[in-house]
């Protein structure tokens, strides 16, 4: 296919050719018309002088005869001079038109001779008549004269009358020329028209074909078929359009391939995740992952090795025979990392190099590594849990039996001490009473300790259930109870209303009883105590203006049996805050304290892990 002229040039060419055709037709028309005109002009130049000559000569001759008549009638011989003048005039005109007469086939010399032959007698007759000669007497001369006149006039007619045959031939030639002009004109016009029509048809055909090709191509693009190129060989504007459309198509094809590859990879990742989800057995996990990958990427063979902490590798999964593939096959080998550690090695044999398979493997290797690590750690954790649980159970049994077994001797001590006071009060000296009282109170304190320890063990192990708890109401209830027991105390209570939490209600009661109880207890020496409860930014707090403590001793505060104050100062077992801490921990939260000696203390706690704060944000309802 030859390179085509651009469309605009083609149209320009067409217009140019149309103009040339028009000019040609016009020029031909003009030339032919001119030829006809020339022919007609030839006729004119040839015959107009002849006609004029004919008219002039005949007019002059008529004047001559009239003058002769007048001279004869008037009897004036002088008039004959006029006649002579007219004769001379006639001869002059004859000489002037001699060439014309010759061209017309006449003989001017003969004519002048014949004129003389006529004029002489005619002049004589006129003269004699003018002199009075009776007309009858001139009759014979007149007859002769008239014969001469007739001969002369006949010859004049013949000489100056247009030759009919020649004139007819000339007009026929002119007509012929006009007919030929018309024919040539029409032929040229039709030819030009045909050429124009052919050119137009060619341009329209090629253009329409290109436009059809482009339209079909663009429709294919619109339908999402980018694989077929638009075939337009022309280098005109439509060709440019087609090239652009093809470029767009190839870009779209690339994008689609990229998207398809991404989709393929994402699907692979997601399906692999589904395949190995919940599988904690490392060998099974490896087999499932390998089997899935081999199928998905179309591998011919594959292996997975797992490596332990010491780097010892063992084959955990295998499909086909690695290394048996035909030449030219592609081997993908990648480690399965978890952080710094290599958890295993994955090998896949592909029938042909595949970029997307490589990318998929690159995307999943870490995930498989993590899964391996999880499986491995799960294995460790289960071991640990099993050991811990056994130890816990033993501890619990021990704690229970301790508290239970200790209670009985304590009750005995208590009971017998009381019995001794009741039964032998009279026999005992005051010192004995004092001793007995100490024994009793010691036993009671021991019982409290045992109860608290029991409670602590129960807190750690017992049932746990989150509910919507109104902490404000709970705090009001607890402080009200405390105030009733010591009505003589003056205390300013600031309980923020509408503080709620998603927590275990029983455990939260223990938390608040302990924290508010502590606040109540450590403010007992103040004239005006001040206790606050509220929440700020998801952190609950209990604040008092009591004894406080030195922050450098704050660390062991939440361990059992750690006390910062003596029993003489403030009563207590030292287990309360440990219990609170356990409960808060069980809720996934954290507790901490801020204090200074004699400046009060503030205990703050969260009830959820800080990361999950949004999920279980404490709600404040006004």
């Amino acid at each position, binding site marked *: 296919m030859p390179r085509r002229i651009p469309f605009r040039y083609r149209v320009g060419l067409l217009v140019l050719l149309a103009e040339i055709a028009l000019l040609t037709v016009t020029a031909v028309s003009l030339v032919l018309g001119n030829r006809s005109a020339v022919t007609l002009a030839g006729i004119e130049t040839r015959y107009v002088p002849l006609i004029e000559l004919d008219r002039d000569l005949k007019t002059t001759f008529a004047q001559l005869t009239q003058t002769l008549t007048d001279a004869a009638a008037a009897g004036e011989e002088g008039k004959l001079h006029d006649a002579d003048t007219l004769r001379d005039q006639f001869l002059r005109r004859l000489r002037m038109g001699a060439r014309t007469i010759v061209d017309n086939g006449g003989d001017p010399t003969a004519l002048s001779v014949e004129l003389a032959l006529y004029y002489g007698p005619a002049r004589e007759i006129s003269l004699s008549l003018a002199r009075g000669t009776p007309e009858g007497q001139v009759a014979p001369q007149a007859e002769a004269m008239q014969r001469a006149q*007739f001969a002369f006039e006949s010859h004049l007619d013949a000489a100056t009358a247009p030759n009919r045959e020649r004139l007819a031939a000339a007009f026929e030639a002119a007509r012929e020329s006009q007919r030929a002009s018309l024919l040539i004109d029409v032929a040229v016009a039709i030819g030009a028209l045909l050429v124009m029509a052919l050119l137009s048809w060619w341009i329209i055909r090629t253009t329409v074909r290109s436009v059809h090709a482009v339209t079909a191509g663009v429709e294919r693009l619109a339908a999402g078929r980018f694989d077929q190129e638009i075939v337009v060989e022309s280098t005109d504007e439509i060709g440019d359009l087609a090239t652009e459309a093809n470029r767009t198509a190839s870009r779209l094809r690339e994008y689609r391939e990229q998207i398809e590859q991404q989709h393929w990879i994402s699907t692979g990742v997601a399906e692999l995740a589904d395949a190995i989800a919940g599988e904690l057995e490392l060998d099974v996990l490896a087999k499932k992952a390998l089997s899935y990958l081999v199928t998905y990427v179309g591998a011919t063979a594959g292996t997975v090795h797992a490596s332990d902490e010491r780097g010892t590798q063992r084959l955990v999964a295998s499909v086909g025979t690695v290394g048996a593939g035909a030449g030219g096959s592609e081997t993908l080998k990648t480690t399965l990392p978890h952080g710094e550690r290599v958890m295993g090695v994955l090998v896949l044999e592909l029938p042909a190099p595949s970029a997307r398979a490589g990318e998929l493997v690159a995307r999943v290797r870490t995930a498989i590594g993590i899964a391996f690590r999880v499986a491995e750690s799960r294995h460790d954790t289960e071991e640990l849990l099993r050991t811990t649980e056994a130890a816990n159970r033993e501890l619990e049994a021990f704690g229970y039996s301790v508290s239970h077994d200790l209670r009985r001797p304590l009750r005995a001590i208590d009971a017998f001490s009381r019995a001794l006071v009741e039964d032998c009060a009279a026999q005992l000296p005051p010192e004995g009473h004092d001793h007995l009282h100490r024994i009793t109170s010691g036993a009671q304190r021991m019982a409290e300790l045992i109860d608290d320890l029991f409670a602590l063990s129960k807190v750690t192990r017992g049932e746990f259930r989150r509910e919507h708890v109104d902490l404000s109401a709970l705090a009001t209830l607890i402080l009200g109870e405390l105030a009733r027991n010591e009505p003589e105390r003056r205390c300013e209570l600031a309980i923020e209303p509408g503080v709620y939490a998603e927590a275990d209600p029983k455990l939260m009661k223990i938390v608040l009883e302990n924290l508010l109880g502590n606040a109540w207890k450590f403010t007992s020496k103040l004239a005006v105590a001040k206790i606050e409860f509220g929440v700020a930014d998801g952190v609950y707090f209990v604040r008092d203006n009591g004894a406080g403590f030195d922050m450098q001793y704050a660390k062991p505060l939440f361990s059992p049996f750690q006390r910062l104050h003596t029993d003489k100062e403030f009563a207590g077992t030292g287990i309360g805050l440990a219990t609170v801490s356990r409960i808060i921990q069980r809720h996934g939260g954290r507790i901490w304290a801020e204090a200074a000696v004699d400046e009060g203390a503030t205990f703050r706690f969260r009830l959820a892990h800080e990361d999950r704060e949004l999920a279980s944000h404490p709600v404040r309802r006004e």
Partner: protein
Amino acid sequence: MQNLTRRGWMFAVALASTRWRSAFAATDHFVVIVHPDNPVASIDRDFLRDAFLKKATDWSHGETIRPIDLSGRFGVRDVFTREVLHKTAAQLRSYWNQQIFSGKGTPPVEADSMVEMIDYVVANAGAVGYLPSGTAPGRAKVVEVK
């Protein structure tokens, strides 16, 4: 001189003929003569006129008409001119001038005497002429003018 004399003659003839004509008004002062072989017995006045003005060229039997006039010396010519040709002498002269130079025709020949007239008529087959009444026509044939 000769010319003057001729004019004087013509004037005298004209005077005389006028008087003569008035004296013989409404009477035929001429007779029309033709060639003795001419079959016509009478001649129409208009035909006669046409013949003498050369407007008619042939007799009914095919002979060419050859008219002959009398010289102006004879008074009967004026009568003939007036009564047959319905023209004065000047009118006739003018007529013939026109005819001569336009090439249309020539005037009839003139006879200078009665004898000459008769001779001409007898000599030419198609001839026609006239004579004053009372003149012997000789061998010429007199025809009636209607």
